[in-house]
């Protein structure tokens, strides 16, 4: 059972690495092409970096391909994109939550956005009690306010909603 899990994890990791390396290879090649159009003084350090980088990425793709079956890897990538690989699905969920946090901060402002997102993470995702879910975000926001605004005099983002009601042009 443990062996099966380990094998499955290795297959998933190989597939993820291959997918990542292919994306990295495409981006690196694009950077290489872009660098050709730059002034020589500006592109010289880029070539010093890009030439060995492209070679190393290709070597690593070759090494990974030797360990992984291409068809299996493709199936794993498809399964991951379909939400069937648990760890990948949880990671994507976390990333979406972080993006949502960013949107909350943009609209509601730093403190309100953080408190809202923290409440969601603690209460809905973490399944903690209502008391804990309310207490932790409020205490954290107060601590951050004291530290940043009072101690370091750093004003955090007030949010578009506030700016709109304060008469700023936000669009």
């Amino acid at each position, binding site marked *: 059972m443990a062996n099966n899990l380990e094998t499955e994890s290795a297959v998933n990791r190989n597939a993820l690495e291959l997918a990542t390396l292919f994306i990295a290879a495409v981006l690196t090649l694009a950077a290489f092409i*872009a660098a050709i159009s730059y002034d020589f003084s500006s592109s010289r*350090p880029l070539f010093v970096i890009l030439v060995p980088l492209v070679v190393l990425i290709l070597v690593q793709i070759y090494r990974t391909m030797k360990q992984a079956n291409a068809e299996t890897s493709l199936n794993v990538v498809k399964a991951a994109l379909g939400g069937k690989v648990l760890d990948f699905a949880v990671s994507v969920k*976390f990333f979406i939550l972080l993006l949502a946090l960013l949107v909350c901060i943009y609209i509601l402002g730093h403190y309100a956005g953080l408190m809202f997102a923290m409440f969601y993470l603690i209460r809905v995702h973490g399944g*903690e009690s209502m008391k804990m879910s309310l207490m932790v*975000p409020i205490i954290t926001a107060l601590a951050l306010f004291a530290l940043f605004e009072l101690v370091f005099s750093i004003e955090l983002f007030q949010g578009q909603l506030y700016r709109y009601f304060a008469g700023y042009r936000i669009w």
Partner: protein
Amino acid sequence: MGILEGLVSGFGQAISFEVLPYLIVGSIFGMIIGIIPGLSGHFAMAMLIPFLYKMDPAPGIAFLLAAHATVAQGGGLTAILFSTPGTGQNAATLLDGPPMREQGKAGVAVGAAMTACFLGATFGAIALALLLPVLQQVVLFFGPPEIFVLSFLALTFIAVLGKEDMTRSLIAGLLGLLVSMIGIDNVTNQERFTFGLLELYDGLPLVPVILGLFAVAEMFDLFVKGGSLVDKQHGTLSAGETQKQIFEGIGIALKKWWLVMRCSAIGTTIGIIPGLGSAPAAFIAYGHAKQTSKSKETFGKGNIEGVIGAEAANDAVEGGALASTVAFGIPGSSSMAILLGGLFILGLETGVDMVTTDVDIVFVMIFTVIFGNLIGTIFGMFLVNPIARATSIRSSIMVPILIAVVVTGAFAAQGSLFDIVVTLIFGVIGYLMKILNYSRAAMLIGYVLGHAVEKNLYLATQLKGTFFFLSPIPLTLCLITLGFIAYNVYGMIVDRERQQ
């Protein structure tokens, strides 16, 4: 500034009212981060970096370095009390710390570990002070061609000697260098990979990159794993009994001063070599302690010498690592790369200026390492039981709190929402690198070194032409780099053939 003058000034600054509070807060913060498994020294430093924008050099350095200095102490506590190393560098402490706890001597092990940490750090710091006159002379031989080639040598060392696979680490290091080239070229005014975004004209901001690679990536990991931070909670001793045992442990560590000195010397020497870091130093020191012990057979079953040796080497590494960072601007680990970034933010230049003009700043670092560890030891001695409870916090509560702090830190550095976006993107990259075994340290070091690499390549070609690398020192460094890679590739091929 002379060395004696720098020493007096550095000491004065380190104990001043302007610096000491930051040193104390940094030490306590580092210790708590060290205690929490999964969060390490570079995480502690990454969290503090945003505050540096509002600080003067001396308090900023004390704040940052004190946090880093005490992480290993906190990690040692967790290794002994919960059989889980708080940080990777405390893995060697697991060999004899938990068996001592099983024998009811947890407090003795904690006391000995804390004292060994403090003595080791002091040894490393004094070694750095003694190395300063030598560094002042050596650094004069290093101009643009030498620094350019040295940067690649350092990256190669980190890639080859690091715990990750060599090819993957080299890719990470080069990606870091590439990422550092984003923005407007200062020499030609050429826009590079900016996509017309005004926010990218000055390059990718340092703080969000550090926070993303090291802090957000850890959050991903904690979120995916879930549950409590340590798998198994062990009963803690009563406060009175713990204190009694801790003082006994301190006494034993002081009695074994010669072992502490030897293991600290191992740690400091390894610290100078980029890429090796604390964990190998601790294991080598552990091996040395075992070899030279009269009771070898009890190692692994709760021998206090095993704890002392590993912990002394752990903290002595910092002195050596600081030497190459301040003298050449070449960081040997991710923590030193963050420190280097912090120095840039504080407006300080490493290299000749640092070891000749800003000697007082180097001594602030030295005294911070010593005082930070002393504060950590005192704090740890009296608050072992309460701070050990930090490990029982569930990730469902810990992750949102840390995310709030990280996001706020990312924004506060420059007051830009774009920085939060960069943090999230590098968080994903950092997490991918973590699970795929790519060295995040190599990437960060590449990123931090990028500006130096570009500037020195430009200056070297202007000063000495295209074949600047044929001068004696650059050529020697080039040959060492190539020889080092060739030797390791050969070793890998031989290993593979043997396995087949």
